[in-house]
């Protein structure tokens, strides 16, 4: 694929990737990925853009970002970024962010907070995953703890108005416990309330999606997964979908990135004046983990 076809990532009508702060508006964004096309490269690009306003996927900034030998300074970051993960630990994120985005993130990094919700999930927070009586209270306690940590982190480190929260694989809770989608969505709203922009990263498994299902039990896994995803799309302002090529596989294309308007995208347009520009990119992730976008 020739270099001339290479594209820059732009999501909104003004060309930005993450919108500027608007005190009257808190956005909810959904990132879905499928098996074989992981979201890491895209989430990293979002984190980099949130912190330093650059994007290593874009041709102009990728040269400068990688040519710097020293890691870039997070002291004067443009926002405070919090990653809440139900899947990976900090080592995973810091290794990838260092390699591809030249960002050094450690537990003591300014303007960056990582919350590992997986390591102690079943030993500390959710002790009875199958008890319908206690699960809601336990999950509520877990999210109260997460919210508390976010608020403390934002207060302790140089104050920023813009708080960007990325939650990875939240749907793990409905798959592994008897928690219902509505109870989890309630916690999503709570996180959206404290963040300027909330990104929920979730897996979309086509075999676990059936929109027209009539489930006989509220614990049916297909029903729960579909209920969560569909309701998330209805309430999202933006949907980013990373998925494999519909036509099979290719050596020079890893997958497709789709930028789709969410159910409430009109709310965003009316309040902030920003419009989601729908489009589709082809992308290629190299062996070293760097991604390139191409026009489709």
């Amino acid at each position: 694929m020739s270099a001339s076809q290479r594209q820059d990532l732009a999501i909104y009508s003004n060309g930005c990737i993450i919108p500027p702060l608007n005190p009257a508006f808190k956005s909810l964004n959904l990132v879905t990925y499928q098996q074989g096309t992981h979201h890491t490269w895209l989430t990293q690009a979002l984190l980099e853009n949130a912190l330093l306003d650059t994007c290593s996927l874009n041709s102009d900034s990728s040269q400068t970002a990688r040519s710097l030998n020293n890691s870039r300074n997070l002291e004067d970051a443009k926002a405070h970024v919090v990653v809440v993960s139900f899947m990976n630990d900090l080592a995973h994120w810091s290794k990838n962010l260092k390699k591809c985005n030249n960002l050094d993130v450690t537990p003591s990094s300014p303007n960056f907070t990582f919350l590992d919700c997986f390591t102690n999930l079943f030993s500390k927070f959710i002790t009875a995953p199958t008890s319908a009586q206690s699960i809601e209270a336990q999950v509520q306690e877990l999210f109260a703890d997460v919210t508390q940590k976010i608020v403390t982190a934002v207060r302790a480190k140089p104050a920023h108005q813009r708080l960007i929260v990325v939650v990875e694989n939240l749907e793990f809770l409905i798959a592994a416990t008897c928690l219902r989608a509505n109870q989890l969505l309630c916690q999503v709203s709570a996180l959206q309330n404290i963040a300027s922009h909330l990104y929920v990263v979730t897996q979309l498994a086509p075999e676990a999606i059936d929109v027209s299902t009539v489930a006989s039990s509220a614990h049916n896994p297909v029903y729960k997964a579909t209920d969560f995803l569909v309701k998330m799309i209805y309430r999202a302002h933006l949907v980013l979908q990373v998925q494999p090529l519909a036509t099979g596989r290719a050596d020079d294309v890893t997958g497709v990135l789709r930028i789709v308007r969410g159910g409430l995208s009109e709310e965003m347009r009316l309040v902030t004046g920003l419009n989601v520009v729908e489009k589709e990119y082809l992308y290629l992730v190299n062996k070293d983990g760097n991604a390139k976008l191409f026009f489709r």
Partner: protein
Amino acid sequence: MSTPQNSIVLLNRLLALKESAPFLLVLDTLAQSAYSLVQEFVHKSQTKEVVFLSFETVNRPIYATQFVQCDSLSSQAIIERVHALLPPSAPSAASTKSLVIIDSLNYIASEELSGFISGLMTPTIVLVGVFHSNVPRLESPITNYPQPAEFLTYIASAIFEVQPLVTDSSIDGETLEYAVENLRLPIKAGLNGAVFKLVLVSRRKSGRSLTYKFVVNTATHEVEILQEQDEVAANDDEALLKDLTTFNLTTNKKQQLAKDQVELPFLEAQNFGPGGAIVYEFEKDDDYDEEDPYEDPF
């Protein structure tokens, strides 16, 4: 039979809350959200009191005089909050109606829906409830209990079904349905936009329901009657025949109507009903016999 103009008047009256319709149901899909239609309600009604019951957004709309985030409240608690905000016996409110918007009724359990809707209703409230039709359904534990969508369409005074006005001609209804089922929504097809199709089912007091189709543009607040595909096709036929010869090959509406009403001969013969009966019809030259030989002498 109502004229197209009447249907636009009816829609505008419903949007302006001037009809006596206490519960208006808005059905939307993943392809076209109800958000824009709700904006239109707020724009046209010009009501001073708007209570927004939110399950889906944390952003308080600028028009909402009261905003209640309901996701952690029980349905009874929501009813109590609404009655506290809009007291049913307030005398000043008798002339103007308050608008209560529920951004999604999918979050209320199906068994609680009837109690929830009737609990909210007062003579001064117009309830606009959004229901997402693409959310997967759950069988009720009560045998033969209706699904929420069926129940809501049964009790609603008017049903507003929003559908996308697809701008991409390569996407037909079936393609769109397949895309929605796979959560792979087509891009650049005008989905979730400010211009959309609206199917209005209005129920009269008699119970008779009338269906109208519109195209609503919420950016300019204009409403048009939706031109159906076959109507467009019929017009195309006429356009094809025009200027083809010096003869007039087209038929106008009156001629078409007259043509449709002609009863073709031998149609009676094609009804294979009970045969063999002699049907006598009295004609003016027939000699009518006063005495009926078969008449009962007593």
